[in-house]
């Protein structure tokens, strides 16, 4: 452990902002003369260019954007419901009590449930927000079909080479990136795009289908080289050259999946890499990427408006529905979580229709209260 003099930070900042009093100046000069490191630091602060670079550098990073993602990923449960805050404070014991209470309430007030979902629960609508590199934001509203960022929609919107797009729960977006790539974004998905001379890069949290536009590098050569399009999904990189493919990359790394429909992609995880051909997909098995073939007839779920569940556990199914319909899911029985389901359902269906299909398997039953779905085992 090493102490850091806060007073020095104060003196250094003050020397720049409003100037020092004589006695303060003496203190700082004395400190400066003590070691070469101290002197080096003072010189660095005196360097106008470095200071300008530093202050501009700090302004380049947007804490709000990062905080928004952080909030959505890690705070959503605690932030919106102050009642739950105490659970954190009192720790696991309180959480257990909470569960008991929930169980109790459930048993006592069985009549409080509705048998059908609320009428106002709708499938995901075109909603979301795009923030361009120059700070401008554009929102997508229900009724829009495609948000084109390729050419200035607005005379004031200049061509952006970086942007951040996000859909909320219960939202979806179809956007055209500045390079001409078309992206179908699922609910609760964030996409960070930027383009430089040598490549195009997307960081993705959530689910999206891409139709990557072919683009050539500006370098003059005999054979023009394609400009790579790289999707970063956590620690996995997917590199693409003009292609149609789907990626799912949620905060749960085990959920990662990428399916290729056209062209060729390379999926890299550390030193391991897989080259996919159309009709193949990668998924995670024991933390590692693996290859498997998919049903070639299976149209893309996201782009063509289907939920496709291929022997997926109930939790995966319900997570998808929760994001799409913006509802909460509560399991009244833990065993049902691992039940597997196979289904292909239209994303435009009402929640009631989807529920009917799932209930028709005879394995599970649903109850509703406001925007919450309760799942239980059939008895």
């Amino acid at each position, binding site marked *: 452990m090493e102490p850091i*003099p806060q007073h020095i930070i104060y003196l250094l900042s003050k020397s720049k902002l409003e100037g020092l009093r004589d006695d303060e100046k003496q203190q700082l000069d004395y400190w400066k003369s003590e070691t070469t490191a101290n002197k080096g630091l003072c010189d660095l602060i005196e360097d106008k260019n470095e200071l300008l670079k530093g202050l501009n550098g700090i302004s380049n990073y947007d*804490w709000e954007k990062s905080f928004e993602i*952080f909030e959505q990923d890690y705070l959503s449960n*605690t932030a919106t419901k102050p009642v739950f805050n105490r659970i954190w404070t009192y720790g696991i014991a309180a959480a257990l009590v909470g569960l008991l209470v929930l169980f109790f309430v459930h048993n006592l007030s069985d009549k409080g449930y509705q048998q059908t979902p609320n009428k106002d629960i709708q499938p995901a609508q075109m909603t979301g927000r795009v923030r361009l590199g120059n700070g401008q934001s554009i929102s997508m509203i229900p009724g829009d079909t495609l948000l084109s960022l390729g050419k200035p929609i607005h005379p004031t919107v200049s061509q952006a080479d970086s942007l951040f797009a996000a859909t909320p729960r219960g939202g979806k977006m179809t956007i055209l990136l500045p390079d001409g790539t078309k992206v179908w974004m699922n609910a609760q998905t964030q996409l960070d795009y930027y383009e430089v001379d040598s490549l195009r890069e997307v960081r993705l949290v959530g689910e999206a289908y891409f139709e990557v536009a072919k683009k050539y590098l500006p370098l003059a050569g005999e054979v023009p080289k394609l400009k790579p399009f790289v999707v970063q999904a956590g620690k996995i990189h997917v590199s693409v050259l003009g292609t149609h493919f789907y990626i799912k990359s949620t905060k749960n790394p085990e959920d990662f999946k990428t399916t290729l429909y056209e062209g060729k992609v390379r999926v890299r995880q550390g030193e391991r890499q897989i080259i996919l051909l159309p009709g193949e997909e990668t998924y995670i098995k024991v933390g590692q990427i693996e290859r498997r073939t998919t049903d070639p007839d299976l149209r893309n779920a996201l782009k063509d408006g289907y939920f496709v569940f291929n022997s997926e556990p109930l939790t995966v199914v319900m997570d998808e529905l929760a994001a799409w319909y913006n509802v909460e899911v509560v399991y009244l029985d833990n065993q049902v979580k691992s039940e597997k389901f196979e289904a292909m359902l239209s994303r435009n269906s009402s929640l009631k229709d989807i529920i009917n299909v799932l209930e028709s398997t005879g394995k599970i039953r649903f109850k509703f209260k406001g925007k919450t779905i309760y799942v239980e085992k059939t008895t």
Partner: protein
Amino acid sequence: MKNKVNQEFSKQDFLKSFREGRRDGLQFLYKTFYSPMCYFLEKMTLDKGAIEEIVQDVFLKLWERRIDFDHVESIRGFLYTSCRNAALNRIQQENRIQQKTNSYTEQLDLVDLPISHQMIYMETLRTIHEAIDTLPEQCKQVMRKLVVEDLSPQEAAVSLGLATSTIYNQKKRGIELLRQRLKPDQFFCLLLLFLYY
């Protein structure tokens, strides 16, 4: 306005709010430290994507361990050291896997200093940035020109398209406001900061 609220909040116990797992406590820390931390890693020659990932991860670690922190000083130390360690790991990893040919010889100035001095430098930058940022818009622009870009009042007047008298007035106002803003004890009441290893 926003800044005023924030300052008020810092005087109250944001730390308490943070430890209790309330959003506003974390938001305050995020607002204060996120961008400087990113720039700190930029100085270590990481790219923007990696930087933002690392800093967010470190904030998550901080959030998960929030009960352990009794002082702002220890939070600050945790943030700097965790970010730095994660960055060093990342650099090592990328070197091994990709055999990156990037030379790390540029910008060795800050990185050459001992870690304690790197932190003093970053904290000074942060303090200046934050102080200027709290000023009213026109005043902020004028102070940036004078303090950061080191222009003369005449040059600043030309560059901003303002009368020289306006520059003088705004400068006076700016220094007055900064004097209220910049107090030795305002945020870190202790004069020591401990680094966590």
